[in-house]
C-alpha cells in the first residue's frame, strides 16, 4: 500500500491496516458523515439515485470478486440477482419470513445457484465461460417464469417492505440508510476477502491458472468459492432491489444489466474495490445526465434522434476507457494519490 512521503510501516498490524494514517481515518469518517447526512439535504429523487447506486455497488462487488480478482467472466450476474430477489420475495411474501431472515437466505440461494452454474468453469474458460454464464441467466429467468403458481410468472409478485420492530423501511431516506449500511459492509468485506488466503488464491488464478495450480492452489475449490461469494453479493443486491420496488418481476433483471455491470467494472477498474465504487457511481450518474439532457437535445433535434442516447453514451464511455485507460478510474485515482503522497517532491 502506498503511504504518504515519510510514513513507514513498523509492524505487521500497520502493514495490514486498510486505513493507515490519521488523515485516511479523518477522510473516511468525513465521507461516512457526508454519506449518511445525505437524506438531510437531498430530496427523494437524489436519494433514489443514490439507493440504486448503492444496490449496484453491492452487485458489482460480487462481480469484481468473480471477474476482477478471479478472472471468471460472468455475464449472468443479473440472473443471479434474480435468484436472490425471488428467494427473498417468496420467503417474505408467501412464507411470512422477516426481511432480515430472508436476506441471508437470498444470499445463500444465489450463492448455491452460483456454484451450480460455476461448475462449467472447471472445464471451460474465457469466451466459453461467458457463454455458459449467459445460458445461466436465461435458464434462471425461464425457471422463474415457468413457476407461475409460485412466482407469479410474467405478472410478478408483490413484495413487502423491510420492517424492524414495527418500523417499516418505506420512506426513501430509511431505505437509503439500509442500502448504504449494507453497501458499506459489503465494501468492507470485499476489501478484506481479497486479502485472505482465498483472495490471494483468486488473484493467483487470475494471473496464471497453471502457475497457481503448480503452487498448490486448488482450482476446483477456489473457482467455486469465487462463484459463491460473487453470487452472494448478487443475491443481496437482488433482494434489496425487489424490496425497494415492493414488487418482483423478471423484467427487473434484464440481460443487459449484466453487460452494464461488467461495463462498470471496466470504467471503474477491475480488481479494485474502489474501482467498483467509481464504476457504479460514474455510469449511474452518466445515466442520470443523459436522462436530463435527452429532452433538451430533443428540443433541438427530435425525440427519436435524442433517443438511445443513454446506450450510445455508455457504450462510448466503455470504449474510451478500454482504449485509453483499461485499468479504469481506480488507476487514475491511484495516480492522483501517488502524486499527492510525494508532494512537494516532483518524483
Amino acid at each position: 500500500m502506498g503511504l504518504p512521503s515519510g510514513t513507514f510501516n513498523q509492524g505487521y498490524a500497520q502493514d495490514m491496516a486498510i486505513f493507515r494514517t490519521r488523515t485516511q481515518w479523518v477522510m473516511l469518517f468525513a465521507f461516512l458523515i457526508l454519506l449518511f447526512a445525505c437524506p438531510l439535504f437531498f430530496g427523494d429523487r437524489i436519494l433514489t439515485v443514490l439507493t440504486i447506486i448503492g444496490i449496484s455497488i453491492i452487485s458489482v462487488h460480487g462481480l469484481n470478486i468473480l471477474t476482477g480478482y478471479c478472472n471468471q467472466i460472468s455475464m449472468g450476474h443479473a440472473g443471479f440477482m434474480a435468484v436472490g430477489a425471488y428467494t427473498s420475495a417468496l420467503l417474505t411474501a408467501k412464507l411470512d419470513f422477516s426481511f432480515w431472515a430472508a436476506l441471508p437466505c437470498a444470499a445463500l440461494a444465489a450463492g448455491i445457484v452460483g456454484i451450480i452454474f460455476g461448475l462449467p468453469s472447471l472445464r471451460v474458460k474465457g469466451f466459453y465461460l461467458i457463454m455458459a454464464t449467459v445460458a445461466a441467466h436465461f435458464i434462471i429467468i425461464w425457471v422463474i417464469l415457468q413457476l407461475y403458481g409460485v412466482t407469479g410468472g410474467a405478472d410478478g409478485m408483490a413484495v413487502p417492505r423491510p420492517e424492524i420492530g414495527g418500523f417499516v423501511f418505506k420512506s426513501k431516506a430509511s431505505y437509503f440508510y439500509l442500502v448504504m449500511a449494507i453497501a458499506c459492509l459489503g465494501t468492507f468485506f470485499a476489501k478484506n476477502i481479497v486479502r485472505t488466503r482465498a483472495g490471494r488464491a483468486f488473484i493467483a488464478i487470475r494471473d496464471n491458472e497453471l502457475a497457481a495450480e503448480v503452487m498448490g492452489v486448488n482450482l476446483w475449490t477456489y473457482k467455486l468459492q469465487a462463484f459463491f461469494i460473487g453470487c452472494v453479493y448478487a443475491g443481496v443486491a437482488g433482494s434489496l432491489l425487489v424490496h425497494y420496488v415492493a414488487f418482483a418481476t423478471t423484467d427487473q433483471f434484464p440481460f443487459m444489466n449484466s453487460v452494464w455491470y461488467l461495463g462498470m467494472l471496466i470504467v471503474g477498474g477491475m480488481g479494485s474495490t474502489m474501482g467498483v465504487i467509481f464504476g457504479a457511481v460514474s455510469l449511474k450518474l452518466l445515466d442520470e445526465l443523459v436522462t436530463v439532457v435527452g429532452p433538451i437535445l430533443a428540443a433541438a433535434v427530435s425525440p427519436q434522434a435524442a433517443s438511445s442516447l443513454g446506450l450510445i453514451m455508455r457504450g462510448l464511455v466503455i470504449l474510451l476507457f478500454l482504449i485509453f485507460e483499461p485499468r479504469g478510474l481506480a488507476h487514475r485515482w491511484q495516480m492522483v494519490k501517488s502524486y499527492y503522497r510525494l508532494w512537494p517532491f516532483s518524483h
Partner: protein
Amino acid sequence: MTKIKWLFISSIIVLLLAMPLLAACPAEETTTPATTAPPPKTTAPPPVQKTLSIGGCFALTGAYAEDMAAVLAGFEDYAAYVNETHKLAPWRTETFPEDITVEVLWRDDELNVEKVLSIYEELKDKGLLVERTSGSPQALALMNLLDEDRIGATSSAVGPYLLSPPKTIFIQYPVYTDATAAIADWFLDNWEETRAPRVAYLTADNAMGKSVVIPEMDTYLESIGFEVVGTQYVPLVPTSPPTTQLLWLKENKVDLALGVMINPGAQPTVKEMVRLDMGPNLGYKITFGTASPGHLWILAKAMGELGNGYVCAGSYNPPEDLTVPGVKFCSDLQDSYRSDRVTHIMYQHGVVEAMIQVEALRLAMLKVPIDELAPVDVLEYGFYMIKNLETGGITSTPLSFGPGDVIGMDEVLVQQVQGGEAVALGTWPLHNIYKQE
C-alpha cells in the same frame, strides 16, 4: 507543510459540506422577492400564467422506441392545441382555463426498471401531478409506488397485473387477456366445423406476451368450446424467422394462434407463416391474432396482401380514415403543430392519453384550486371522475374510470387485414377474464 495539507483537506470538507446546503436552498428564494416591489399604479396586473404538466416516462430507447416517439408527438400536439384554443377537442363544449399553460414533461426510461425509479422521483419533484408508463416492466415497477403516493397514471402497457388489485394506472384499451379473448369470440362466431377448434398461444417472450398465458385464459377458452393445445414463444423482436414455433402449430393442428406482439414481432411471424403456406386462405388453415400492440394498420401498410387474415383487437383506426372524428382531429393537430408528419398509429394513442391526463387535471381543478392541487386530488377528483370521455372514436368506446375501474371501456374493436387493407370486424364485449384479487 502539514499545515498546508490540513488547510487543503479542511477546505475540501467545508466545500463538500456547503454543496448540499446550497443545493437544498430552493431556487425561487433567490429570484424574486415577494414584498419589495410596489404594485404598478396604472392598470391591473395581467393574469399570471400558470403551468400544469402532463407526460411521464417514454421508452424512447429499445423495442418500443418508434411507438413511444409517436405517443410523445401526440402528447406535444395535444398540449399545443389546448394551449392555443383552450378547447379539449372539437366535439367537446368544456374548455380549459385560459390562464393555465399545459406543458409536456418527459424522460426516456430506456425500458429500464432502475432508471424509471429515479425518473419517477425527478418528475414528482418537478411537480408532475400525473404520470405515465411505457411498457410492462416500468408499469410493474411503478404501480405500487404510484398507489402508495396516490398518483394517477396512464399507460401504453395494459397487462393484467394492473388489475390485481386495481391500482392507479388507467388504460384506454383492454388488458391483453380480454383483447385476445375478443379475437377468440370472433373466431368462434365464424367457426363452421363440428369439431372443437384448437387454439394455441403464439406470443412474445416478455412480460407483455406472457401475460396472456395464464390459467384463467385457458379456462375461458375451454369454456367457450376451444381445445387449448399449448404455447410457443417468439422473441419480442425476432432475429430469425420463428419457423420452429410455426411448424409446431402446424404439427399440433392448431386452428387459431393467439398472442401479444408488437409489429417488429408480428410482421416476421406473419411473413414466415405465408412462406410455410399457413394462413386462413392458404394451404394450412390457421388464423393468427394479437392484442393491440401488434397494430393492424401498421402491419397492413407494411405487408399489404401478404398480411391477409391477420387479426388484431384493440388497435386504432387507420390514420387515413378521416370519417372518424378522432382520426380527423389527429390529422388536424399534425397539420397545425407539426412540420414533419408522424405516420405511426400510436400518435392517436398519445393524443388520447394526453386527453385523459388533461381531463383529469381539469376535473380536479373544479374541486381544488390549482395552487393547492396535489396528485391525490387529481386521482380522486380527476381520474376517478372521468365518465364517458368521448375520444371521437379513437378508442372502441368512450372512456369511464373510477375506483377499482381502471379499464376505460367495456367493448373492444376487432380488425382484420383483408385485401391488404384494415377492415373492422366489429366490437366484442370484454369478459374481465383476469381474476382481480
